[in-house]
């Protein structure tokens, strides 16, 4: 793997008809970067060479064998510069962060760092900095901090607030938390959509309660993979089947809840990935979060499916999934996913920005 060069990536990009920028970004996500600082994972803003745009990318810095390295303000691929480093910081379990210029707000408000059991998740190897916030008052405190930190008067500009957490142990806890968040956010003139990443809400009645308690909602099912689920996922996630996921997505549609799923590309055989994602495609109402598998240590690297050791796995998957999702009118958006299979183009069109 480490002999990957810019020429090689260029050839792969050409042979698959994929822009070089996208191919480099997929490769960087897949390989990670050689360690240079004590940070395990770095959120960085980079300007790929030959690009005017600054992109957000979050990479593990742990892979001694990676062909990528940081040298000063350059990201190098086997010694060749591929991007300029514009900014960087360690990526811990932050309580809040912004996407799309602040119109999309992400919260880790429910003990995300205490959530363990999914093999590929870096939370447990990072230093925790989040908290469990239950009441509307506690959540309002976080939102007030967010306002002060960004010099905002209120949240009327925000279109979506996302809660990332896999650790709601039951539907009631998830509904109560999101309901409290709606109450808290309403105090600051937020009228947008709430978004929850979870796999704990499965019954129609629970989804209905969620919709009633929270108003406009988006549910992203944390499906993650199709094979080896009991080995790779925590119990509460692993029990979600493909069939049940399709049913939940259909129920969401009936309840006017925007719905999609997370999928980690690189854990399954190629055939299984295509089959599962194609099955789900007809049930989602927005483009799913398909992420390139990132390994944060050797044990995680060991969990990558052998077929995904080759960069072509991701490039083929990308092309084939374009033919699945493009006909149904669903396209990715850059700020929704910082390690996707699509960066500058999707099918025959550009991917919408902003990139950070």
């Amino acid at each position, binding site marked *: 793997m480490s002999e990957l060069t810019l020429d090689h990536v260029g050839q792969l990009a050409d042979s698959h008809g994929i822009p070089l920028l996208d191919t480099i970004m997929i490769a960087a996500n897949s390989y990670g970067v050689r360690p240079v600082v004590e940070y395990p994972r770095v959120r960085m803003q980079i300007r790929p060479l030959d690009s005017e745009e600054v992109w957000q990318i979050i990479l593990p810095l742990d892979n001694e064998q990676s062909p990528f390295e940081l040298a000063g303000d350059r990201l190098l691929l086997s010694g060749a510069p591929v991007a300029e480093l514009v900014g960087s910081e360690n990526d811990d379990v932050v309580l809040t962060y912004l996407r799309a210029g602040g119109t999309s707000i992400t919260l880790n408000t429910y003990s995300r760092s205490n959530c363990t059991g999914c093999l590929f998740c870096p939370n*447990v190897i990072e230093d925790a900095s989040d908290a469990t916030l239950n009441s509307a008052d506690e959540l309002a405190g976080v939102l007030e901090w967010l306002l002060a930190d960004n010099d905002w008067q209120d949240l009327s500009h925000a279109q979506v607030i996302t809660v990332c957490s896999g650790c709601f142990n039951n539907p009631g806890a998830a509904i109560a938390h999101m309901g409290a968040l709606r109450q808290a956010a309403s105090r600051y003139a937020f009228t947008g959509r709430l978004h929850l990443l979870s796999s704990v809400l499965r019954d129609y009645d629970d989804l209905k309660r969620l919709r009633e308690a929270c108003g406009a909602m988006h549910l992203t099912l944390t499906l993650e993979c199709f094979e080896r689920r009991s080995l790779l996922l925590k*119990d509460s996630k692993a029990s979600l089947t493909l069939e049940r996921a399709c049913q939940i997505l259909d129920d969401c549609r009936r309840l006017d809840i925007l719905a999609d799923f997370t999928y980690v590309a690189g854990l399954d055989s190629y055939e299984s990935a295509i089959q599962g994602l194609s099955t789900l495609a007809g049930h989602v109402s927005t483009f799913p979060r398909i992420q390139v598998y990132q390994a944060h240590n050797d044990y*995680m690297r060991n969990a990558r499916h052998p077929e995904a050791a080759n960069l072509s796995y991701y490039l083929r998957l990308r092309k084939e999934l374009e033919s699945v999702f493009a006909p149904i009118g669903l396209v990715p958006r850059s700020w929704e996913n910082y390690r996707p299979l699509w960066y500058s183009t999707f099918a025959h069109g550009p991917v919408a920005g902003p990139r950070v």
Partner: protein
Amino acid sequence: MADPVPTLIVDIGGTLITRARPGARSRVLTALAERGVPLDARQEQAIGDAIFTAPDLDACLRSLTSMYPDRLEAIEGALREPAGPATIAPGALDLVTTAVATGWRVIAATNAVAGTPPLPPELAAVSATACSADYGVAKDDPRFWHLLVEREDINPRLAFVVGDSPRTDREVPRAAGLQTRLARPGSGALATLAADLASAGPMPPDAAAVVVTDGEQWAGRPVTTAPHLEDLVVRVTRSRHRFVTGDGRSYWGQVVRRKSLAPAVVLDADAVPGVSWLLRQRERSRFVAPAGLRAALAAEDITLDDLSAEDHRHAISMIREARDADIAAERIADLVRFLRDKAAKSH
């Protein structure tokens, strides 16, 4: 190696003492104004810099008369006028005495012109005086505070600046990485601070920093601006700590990174102590391997010793999380297989 002794840095004029006559800068500005010299803010700043940083009065005079050559007499008269008698400010003696009694080193900081008389003998417990005239840079320049930290071997985490000027004694030292507390004359601030130091008590052996509140509110809650704790929030955005005082109070709180301001300390308490000690974080305890894993490792003569603390935590948490015995066994087998292969490769 920075001194582990906590250090209180106190402004002199207007904080520790007051003088019956205005200081040299005010006298020179008045003298020039009375002689019809128009002065804007930039010129006043230049005059202040010349007075505060000159090594002696002659050098100061040369510098000022080069700026205003036809006003030599007025400038010299104002400059050589003796400093007025000093009066120790209310609460100042109590502050210095209490600080020293609880183990603090007290350093005075001043912009006084060269030749200004020393502090009154009652304040002899002040161990050193940092003068802009000696440093060649005035207190409203962050370099003054950097030099002070360096020359006096101060650990910024265990220090703070107290003074009466929002700019010179708060804004600028903060920019140089020092925490501050404003003490407006006549407000009783020094007596309050002395009481806060007494409550905080001597520095505990496991203290990593001192936190001194300044009555600030931010995002609807009391916070302490903590530029001296910047390095605690490099790897993380929030760093959770225990805070204690010498009178037995103990709180949890966080140092929180802010976008465009210095980090803030937020305590989980309604009544926040004026001065408290931030304790060092204990190392996260290493997860204990479940019995099934220990047995499987022993059978293969493999250990987890080569894993980093983080990777060890990751591996064990995967197995601990599995509630089903079969799944736990599957995960143990997978981990052992990985470790065995890794060991084989390294040999």
